[in-house]
C-alpha cells in the first residue's frame, strides 16, 4: 500500500481504530444494546399479498392478549399524523400501509407490548382481509404495464430536478434520466462494427449484522430517537416535517453501527418508532429480525441494454446505454441511484458520442435503495462484460482494448465534465502489472480449466451536499471533535481524529470523537456513497484550522507570537487566570457542483471527485460441475492518498469480499412477490470458504488535490470490477459467457452444456 506520512505523523499512519478495545471486549455501544425504563416492544404484521386493497383489519383478538398495550393500524397513525408519508426522493411510503399494500412484507399493523414475545404472539392473531390486485415484478414489464404501483407520483420538495414529476399518473417510471454527448446516431451509422448485448443483475440485500433498530423516547421537550442510522441529520429533518415540529424538538442519536452498507439510510423504522412513542407516550423499541430486513430495503435488480459502435482497430466511437432499475414498491433513494449512476453508465472510456437513458421503475417488490456502490456495480457488470465480448470478437487482447479507449485526465467524460484527479489509466496498468498480464498463462486441462479476466469501473461522488464539523479545545488543551458522520465499521471516527490531530499537532489517540447526536453534533448530509472522508474530512480540516487560528489569536492576545510556544493549557491560564474557557473551531464544506442539464445531462462539474476501482481475477472452472474456484484476486483502486493505510486496505479487501457474494451466490428468490429465502440459511453470503486463495489489494500512488491531505472516498471502489472480472475469466477458461448474476455453478454448468449442444432439463 502507498503510504505518505504528513509532517505531524498523524495522517498517513496506520492508527488502530479508536474503538478497538470496546469491540474486542463485547462493550461496543450499539443501539441494539439500549434498554430504557418502561420501554415497550413491537412486532410488525406484514402484508401477505404483493398488491392489494386493504378491506378490513381485525385487531380485537390481539388486543386481548395480556401484556399488549396497543395494536396500531395505518388509519390510527393517520389520525395522529395526517400526511404520514416519508421518503428522501418521493414522499410515497406510508408509516403503516394505508388503503392498499404494494409488496409482500410491507408493514400493515404493529403490536406494542411489554415483552417482545408477547408482541410476537399477539401479532399472529391480527387478521387482515385483502382484495388482491394484479401485480407487476419485472422492471421491463412494469415500465410498459397498465398495473400501476402508485396512483400518482409524489416527489419530495428536496430535489428541484424532480418537481416536474408532481402528480403524474398512470406510470411506474419514477425518474427518467437522459444524457446525450456528441452525435451518437451519426457515429453509430459510421462505425465499422456495432455490438449489442443485454446484462441483468439480481435483487440482493445488505444483511447488516446488527439488524435495523430504532427506539422512540418521548421527552419533556419533544422526542428522542435512538437509532442505528447512517443519516441522523436527515432523520431529524424528516421526522420534524412529518410531525410539523421545528427541528430542535427532535433529537436523533446513533451508536456504533453493526454494519450499514446503505441499508440504514433515510427513514427506515424511525417514523414508526416516533409515531408509536408519541401515541403511547412511552419509549417504544422497533427492532427487526434478519428475515424482516429483506422486506425493508434491498439493492436494485437491473436490466442494461448496451450498444457500441467500434472502428476496425477497436476504438469505441459511440455508445448507447439503456438501463432499467427495479426500484420495488417505494422509491427510497432509487431515483438518485438512477440519475447519479447514469452519469457514468458508459464506463471509464473516452467515447465522443454517448447516449444514456436510466430509468427508475416501481414494481411490487420490496423497495430498493443504496447498497455499497450506489448502482455502479450493476453498470460495471454490463459495460465491462460488453467490452470483453467486443475485444474477443475483434481479436484484440482485453487489456489492449481497454488501453485504446481509456479516459484520461484532461478529457471530457460523458457528462462533459473534464476529468481531473482520476488515476484511471494508472489503476488499469497496475492491475495488469500485478496480474503479469503479458506473461503466458496456464489454462489448465481436462475438466479443470483456468482463465483470467480484468475489469475497471468508476463512479461520480454525490452532490450537492454539505458537511459541518466542530472542534472544541478545552482549557487543559484536550480536544474533542463533533461530527455527525456515523462509524459503521469504516473507521471514520479514527480517520477524522487523524485529521484534527494532524492540523493541531496532537496525538490521534487523544482526540475524543463525539458520536452523532443532533442536539450536539452539527449537520451532515449522511454517511453514504464514500463521501465522508472527502466531504466531512474537508469540514473537519477546516474546523481544526479555524481552531488553530483562534489559538494563535489567543496567543497574540496574551503576548506570545504563536500558540505552539507554550503548552495549550498555559494559553488559557494566561487569558483566564485559571483552567477555564474553550476554543471552538467550526468548518463547513460544500463542494462546487453543477446539476446536469435536464435535457442533455451535460454539466461542466458533475462530481466533487471520481472513484476508480479495478479487479483482476484468476480462476478455475470444473467443467463437470460448473463450480468456479477463485485462485487469485487483485484489487487496485484510486483512493487519493490514504489517511490510514491499514484501514484503507481492509476496506478495499472487505468491499471486494462483499461483491464476491453478490457475484457468486447471493440472490433474493421470489414466488408471487414473496421472498422465499429471507434468512442466512437460504441466502448465502460469503464465508471463509468463498475467499480467493490469494487476495492482493493496492491503492495507487495518487492525490485528490481537493481532498483533505489528498484523500478521497474508499468504501465502494473495489466493488466495481469484481463481477465482470469473474465473468470475463470464466469465458477465458471455458468459452461461455454468463450475462446474469449470480454466477452459480448451475448457471456455469448450463452455459457449458448449451455451448456443447447438450440439452438439460429446465430449472
Amino acid at each position, binding site marked *: 500500500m502507498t503510504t505518505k506520512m504528513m509532517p505531524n505523523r498523524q495522517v498517513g499512519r496506520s492508527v488502530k481504530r479508536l474503538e478497538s*478495545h470496546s469491540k*474486542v*471486549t463485547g462493550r*461496543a455501544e450499539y443501539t441494539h444494546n439500549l434498554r430504557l425504563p418502561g420501554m415497550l416492544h413491537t412486532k410488525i404484521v406484514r402484508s401477505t399479498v404483493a398488491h392489494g386493497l386493504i378491506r378490513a383489519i381485525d385487531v380485537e383478538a390481539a388486543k386481548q392478549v395480556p401484556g399488549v398495550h396497543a395494536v396500531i393500524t395505518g388509519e390510527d397513525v393517520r389520525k395522529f399524523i395526517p400526511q404520514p408519508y416519508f421518503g428522501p426522493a418521493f414522499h410515497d411510503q406510508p408509516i403503516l400501509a394505508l388503503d392498499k399494500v404494494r409488496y409482500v412484507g410491507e408493514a400493515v399493523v404493529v403490536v406494542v407490548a411489554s415483552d417482545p*414475545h408477547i408482541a410476537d404472539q399477539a401479532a399472529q392473531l391480527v387478521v387482515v382481509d385483502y382484495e388482491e390486485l394484479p401485480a407487476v415484478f419485472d422492471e421491463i414489464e412494469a415500465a410498459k404495464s397498465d398495473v400501476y404501483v402508485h396512483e400518482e407520483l409524489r416527489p419530495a420538495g428536496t430535489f428541484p430536478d424532480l418537481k416536474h414529476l408532481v402528480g403524474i399518473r398512470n406510470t411506474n417510471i419514477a425518474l427518467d434520466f437522459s444524457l446525450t454527448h456528441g452525435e451518437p446516431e451519426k457515429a453509430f451509422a459510421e462505425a465499422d462494427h456495432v455490438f449489442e448485448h443485454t446484462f441483468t443483475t439480481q435483487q440482493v440485500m445488505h444483511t447488516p*449484522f446488527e439488524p435495523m433498530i430504532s427506539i422512540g423516547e418521548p421527552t419533556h421537550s419533544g422526542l428522542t430517537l435512538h437509532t442505528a442510522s447512517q443519516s441522523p441529520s436527515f432523520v431529524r429533518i424528516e421526522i420534524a416535517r412529518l410531525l410539523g415540529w421545528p427541528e430542535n424538538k427532535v433529537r436523533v442519536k446513533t451508536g456504533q453501527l453493526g454494519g450499514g452498507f446503505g441499508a440504514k439510510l433515510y427513514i427506515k423504522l424511525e417514523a414508526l418508532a416516533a409515531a408509536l412513542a408519541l401515541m403511547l407516550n412511552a419509549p417504544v423499541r422497533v427492532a427487526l429480525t434478519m428475515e424482516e430486513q429483506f422486506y425493508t430495503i434491498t439493492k436494485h435488480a437491473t436490466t442494461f441494454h448496451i450498444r457500441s459502435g467500434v472502428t476496425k482497430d477497436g476504438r469505441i466511437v459511440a455508445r448507447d446505454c439503456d438501463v432499467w432499475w427495479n426500484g420495488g414498491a417505494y422509491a427510497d433513494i432509487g431515483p438518485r441511484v438512477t440519475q447519479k449512476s447514469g452519469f457514468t453508465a458508459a464506463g471509464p472510456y473516452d467515447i465522443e458520442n454517448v447516449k444514456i437513458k436510466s430509468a427508475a421503475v416501481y414494481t411490487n417488490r420490496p423497495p430498493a435503495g443504496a447498497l455499497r456502490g450506489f448502482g455502479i456495480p450493476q453498470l460495471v457488470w454490463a459495460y465491462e462484460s460488453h467490452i470483453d465480448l467486443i475485444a474477443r470478437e475483434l481479436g484484440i487482447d482485453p487489456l489492449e482494448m481497454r488501453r485504446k479507449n481509456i479516459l484520461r485526465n484532461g478529457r471530457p467524460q460523458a457528462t462533459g465534465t473534464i476529468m481531473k484527479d482520476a488515476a484511471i489509466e494508472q489503476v488499469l496498468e497496475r492491475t495488469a502489472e500485478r496480474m503479469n498480464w503479458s506473461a503466458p498463462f496456464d489454462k489448465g486441462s481436462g475438466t479443470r480449466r483456468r482463465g483470467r479476466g480484468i475489469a475497471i469501473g468508476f463512479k461520480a461522488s454525490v452532490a450537492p451536499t454539505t458537511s459541518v464539523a466542530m472542534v472544541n479545545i478545552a482549557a487543559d488543551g484536550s480536544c474533542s471533535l463533533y461530527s455527525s458522520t456515523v462509524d459503521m465499521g469504516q473507521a471514520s471516527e479514527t480517520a477524522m481524529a487523524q485529521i484534527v490531530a494532524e492540523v493541531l499537532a496532537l496525538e490521534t489517540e487523544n482526540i475524543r470523537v463525539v458520536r452523532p447526536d443532533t442536539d450536539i453534533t452539527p449537520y451532515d448530509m449522511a454517511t453514504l456513497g464514500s463521501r465522508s472522508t472527502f466531504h466531512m474530512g474537508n469540514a473537519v480540516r477546516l474546523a481544526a484550522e479555524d481552531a488553530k487560528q483562534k489559538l494563535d489569536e489567543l496567543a497574540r492576545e496574551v503576548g506570545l507570537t504563536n500558540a505552539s510556544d507554550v503548552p495549550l493549557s498555559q494559553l488559557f491560564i494566561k487569558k483566564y487566570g485559571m483552567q477555564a474557557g474553550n476554543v471552538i473551531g467550526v468548518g463547513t464544506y460544500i463542494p462546487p457542483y453543477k446539476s446536469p442539464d435536464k435535457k442533455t445531462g451535460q454539466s461542466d462539474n458533475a462530481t466533487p471527485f471520481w472513484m476508480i476501482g479495478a479487479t483482476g481475477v484468476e480462476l478455475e472452472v470444473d467443467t463437470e460441475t460448473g463450480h468456479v474456484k477463485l485462485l487469485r484476486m487483485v484489487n487496485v483502486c484510486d483512493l487519493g492518498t490514504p489517511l490510514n493505510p491499514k484501514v484503507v486496505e481492509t476496506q478495499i479487501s472487505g468491499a471486494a469480499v462483499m461483491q464476491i457474494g453478490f457475484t457468486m451466490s447471493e440472490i433474493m428468490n421470489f414466488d408471487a412477490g414473496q421472498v422465499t429465502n429471507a434468512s442466512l440459511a437460504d441466502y448465502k453470503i460469503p464465508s*471463509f470458504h468463498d475467499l480467493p486463495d490469494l487476495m492482493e489489494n493496492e491503492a495507487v500512488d495518487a492525490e485528490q488535490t481537493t481532498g483533505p491531505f489528498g484523500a478521497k472516498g474508499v468504501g465502494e471502489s473495489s466493488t466495481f470490477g469484481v463481477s465482470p472480472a469473474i465473468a470475463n475469466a470464466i469465458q477465458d477458461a471455458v468459452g461461455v459467457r454468463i450475462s446474469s448474476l449470480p454466477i452459480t455453478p448451475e448457471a456455469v454448468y448450463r452455459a457449458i452444456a448449451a455451448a456443447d449442444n447438450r440439452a438439460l432439463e429446465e430449472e
Partner: protein
Amino acid sequence: MPQTRTISFTLNGRPVNAEIEAHHTVVELLQERFALFGARESCGQGLCGCCTVKVDGEAVSGCLYLASFVDGASVDTIEGMATSGGLDPIQEAFIEAGAFQCGFCTSGFILMTQRLLEEHPDPTPDKIKSYLSGNLCRCGTYPEIIKAVQLASSKRRASKAAA
C-alpha cells in the same frame, strides 16, 4: 402469565441466580438479566456466530440455546476474557491485525478462536478457515481474521514459553 423459574449457574467465574421463562435463550438471559451485550442475536438461526458463548467450555449459539439448559453449568462470555492484567492475547491480536470493522461478529470470532487454539495451538490457514467457518463477517474481514488467529497463536506460545 408465563411460568418463571430460577436457575443458578456460574457466569464468567462467579456464581449467579436468574429468574427466567421457559422460552428465554442464553442471549436474552445475558442481555436482560446481566446487561451483557457481547453475545448478540443477528441471524437468529445459529448460523452467523454473533451470539457465541461457552457453556462448560463448549461453544454454543446463544440465540438458540435455551437459558434453562445452563442451570448448574458454567457460562463464559467475551466480557469475561480480559482480566485485571489486561486483554487476553487473542483480543490483543485482533486489535493488532485490524481483524474487525463493524465489530458485531467480533465477540463470536474471538471466542471461537479461543476454542480453536485450545484444540489446535498452531493451526494452518486451512484449519483456521474450516474451524471458524461457522462464524460469518458481513464486512468481509476474513483475511485479517486469519492473520489475527496466527498472531494470537504465536502470542500464546510466547507467553507459555515465558511461563
